[in-house]
């Protein structure tokens, strides 16, 4: 056994390959050379008989031959078809192989869509805690203790006397405490309210809080920004109306409706930041002004996608999630 044997074997293979016309013949040829009891396997097993000096050189040539044969067989497969002809594209009506596709939850998708609109308007996305003190959820937001206005914000309490935030407005306070104006933020996150669970209520849901504070932003600007946002989110045809409302932390306060079907639908709450809120964070309400708004993410996703039950978001049935 020497190097010339290998050259001869290569020539022999080439001529046999040239005669192959069908997939089975090709497979037979492959087995004859590359199979467990094929010619190359035999040569590998014989290598032990060579001297230490000859071994590496011979091994390398044998490897080269093996790779040559492998490549030649796979190239030939292209023209004669593989052995398992199921894998040829012979039936174009068979479906494609379904890829394993990851997806974002529709709530995340909605938060991103809204966040993207506001980041393009120069807002920054910030994070906030979920377990809070009464100060951040109520007091600093001009919601006095033991006042009926707290009824609208029924709240979960923890053993330690903290609470689960019932609104993302807490983040307004956290951010303004730390920064000087101008402040332009969007704060998405989970909020909690002990509501009776039904098709439109959940004890956990998501809100997005927005805040724009500087030395000049007016109620007119609030209208302009909110309308622009709603048009980007729902389309340019969307009409908007402002209904006066009451929130302790904004004044003037507004419920924003959008045209929906033949009527109007409440979509978010907003208003100019109340001077008491500025005072709570150490801003001077004579010099600082701006607006805040809050919207329910589930509500918007339900409208956009025609979802009829809020519980679907948290049941996480793949047949639901896979539609997004």
């Amino acid at each position: 056994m020497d190097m010339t044997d290998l050259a001869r074997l290569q020539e022999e293979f080439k001529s046999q390959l040239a005669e192959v016309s069908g997939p089975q013949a090709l497979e037979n040829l492959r087995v004859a050379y590359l199979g467990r009891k094929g010619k190359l396997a035999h040569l590998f097993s014989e290598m032990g008989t060579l001297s230490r000096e000859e071994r590496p050189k011979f091994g390398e040539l044998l490897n080269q031959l093996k790779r040559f044969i492998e490549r030649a067989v796979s190239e030939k497969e292209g023209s004669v078809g593989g052995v398992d002809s199921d894998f040829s594209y012979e039936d174009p009506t068979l479906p494609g192989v379904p890829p394993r596709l990851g997806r974002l939850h529709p709530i995340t998708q909605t938060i991103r869509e809204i966040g993207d609109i506001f980041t393009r308007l120069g807002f920054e996305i910030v994070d906030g805690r979920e377990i809070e003190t009464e100060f951040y959820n109520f007091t600093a937001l001009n919601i006095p203790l033991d006042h009926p206005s707290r009824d609208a914000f029924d709240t979960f309490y923890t053993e330690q006397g903290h609470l689960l935030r019932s609104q993302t407005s807490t983040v307004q306070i956290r951010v303004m405490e730390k920064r000087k104006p101008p402040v332009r933020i969007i704060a998405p996150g989970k909020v909690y309210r002990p509501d009776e669970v039904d098709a439109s209520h959940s004890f956990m849901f998501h809100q997005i809080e927005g805040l724009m504070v500087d030395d000049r932003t007016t109620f007119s600007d609030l209208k302009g920004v909110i309308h622009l946002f709603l048009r980007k989110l729902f389309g340019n045809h969307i009409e908007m109306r402002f209904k006066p409302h009451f929130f302790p932390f904004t004044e003037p306060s507004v419920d924003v409706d959008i045209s929906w079907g033949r009527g109007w639908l409440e979509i978010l709450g907003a208003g100019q930041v109340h001077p008491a809120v500025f005072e709570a964070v150490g801003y001077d309400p004579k010099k600082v002004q701006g607006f805040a708004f809050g919207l329910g993410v589930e509500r918007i996703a339900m409208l956009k996608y025609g979802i009829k039950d809020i519980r679907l978001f948290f049941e996480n049935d793949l047949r639901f999630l896979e539609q997004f």
Partner: protein
Amino acid sequence: MKISLDWLKDFVNVKGSVGKLSDVMTLAGLNIEQVTSIGSDTVFEIEVTTNRPDWLSHLGVAREVHAVTGNTFRPPPFKITPRGKTERVFQISTPDRELCPYYSATLLEGVRWSETPGFMKKRLEACGIRSINFIVDVANYVLLECGQPLHAFDADLLHGTTISARRAKPNEKIVAIDGANYDLTKGDLVIADEKGPVAIGGVMGGKDSEVTEKTRNLLLESAFFAPTVVRHTARRLGLGSESSYRFERRVDPKGVDLARERAVALISRHGRIGSISRAFRSGRLPIDEPKITLKRSEVRRILGVQVPQSKIKSILSRLGLRVSETTNVIRASVPSFRSADLKRPIDLIEEIARVYGYNRIPETLPSPTLAEPTVDPILVAEKKARELCVGLGFQEVITYSMVEESIVLKRGIAHGVRVINPKNRELNLMRPDLLHGLAQTTRQNFFAGQNDFWLFEIGNRYLPNGQKLPKEERLLALVVAGVGRSNFVEGKRRNTLYDLKGAIQHLLLRFGLDQQVTHAPFEDFIYKKGEAISLYKGTHPLGSYGTLSDKVRKQYDLDKPVYYGEMSLERITQYQATELKVKDLPKYPPSPRDLTLILDESIPAQHIFERIKSLGGELVSGIDVLNRFKGSQIQQGKKNLSFRIYYQSRQRTLQNEEVNQLHFSIIDSLNRSFGAELPKGKNDS
């Protein structure tokens, strides 16, 4: 609150269609949620926000209609006439002024009545109040008309002639009109005769002194109770009523006496009264009529639009404020029925804006100054992790932050953050990990027939921190669930722990942490023994992953394999490599060599690879595992491991000779150190 249009028309002119009125009022802030026709009347269901208790009456709503439309307002002709003598005279005492600042009552003797007049019944019923008897109906009628709750006692059933509005004594009890027995505490306000409580102030009257058809002598109460005490008691006893609702929101102190007189007038007009006492009273009405000074320029500063001077004056006047003005300043005196709501200049600006019309204010876009852009690293990491997980084929889920303590604590988690008023009694623990929600989601999807799904969730866990705010740590959790999938090309593709490990390694790689993280075996209740791995960066734990233990699978009724992993995004953010440096592409080709080794089962593959890398140094650019198997064809206690080594230099093309020598010396070394052997006739070298 239901408002009868017919009733409203007693006090204000209404022109145009009902639909038009309802739109105009809604857009000015009095939200009309529903309009219903009842016979010849129309009933509006209005939303009353907590700042507008004055809307809890027809009179208040009429005043608002006047303010918004400018239509003529006619307040009812209330007057307080001096009265004659009654046989009995009552003394009133109000010792606890902070709970009851003012209490008044009028005694009516020799009262006779028959049916409640039809118009009154009709109006009450339109507003959702059932007719009971003439006296109670009059009290309810006045409540809906003026917003002041009244209470009538059968004077013959009261003990003695002293009525006190006082704090309840310890262990005092009362049987209320609803027939139930209530235990009172010293935080409650009671109305008491000389024997004991006869009413829970502002909340509900007592059964023993209730007005019935037999009642001939009445004591008619009208008071101002402190909103907080009424709120406290009504909540504590779960006794919300039309009365408590109004007291909690603060009644108009100026309306207290008028409402009582209005009731007396109605009783005397539609029934008969023998004699009427003077008003017995105690305390002082907390009448507050603040003055607010508003700079004209402020209106424009906040709203962004100049509302004409004359408009401002007419809006505020119609709302019942007394207005005087100079060129720059508006001075307004607030009527008592708005004093809780209108306190500072901004409150007037809101009134001006809403009556002027929010929809008349133009839309503008602000011209903000640029600010330094900042990003929250946790949010950046979250976004990156989401993109990676999606790319790796994982479906995002969102599960509840509250979990069932009874199940979670069985897993050996000692303590957590508990919610004291959970909605669902079982969901009372803020989750200490993400397993609970994901395991439940997995079970539900198994039940729905899913057999192969990969899930991820990003969310907080909550760790107690003494009396301080709990620690909220952002986690990323991954689930590989189900047996696997098959398709007609590849056949069956099983899910294994290696799938989850691969995803986790890839995530760590993308955060620049792959080289620095060790995967160490450990033991935990949630993972199967021997299939639990803990992730460390140095001595800092980053998370763990493994095969869910049979115990956990039993807890959650999971009948198929589930692999679970959880990592702290917060720590990953902390330790991640912040800057990515690109390596130059190799200029010289790799020389791959395949190798199959027979090894003792106990030898970890990692030891073999580490040895190869240390022997090959920078000439080994990578190792791919091709196959690993045990079984009948292999000797007991041994395993086969096939892999491909890539030999490559960054400086030059490696000669075959050099590669072969290195390859064989590696094989020799693996043989000496690990007893690794080559299978007969299998290796290509």
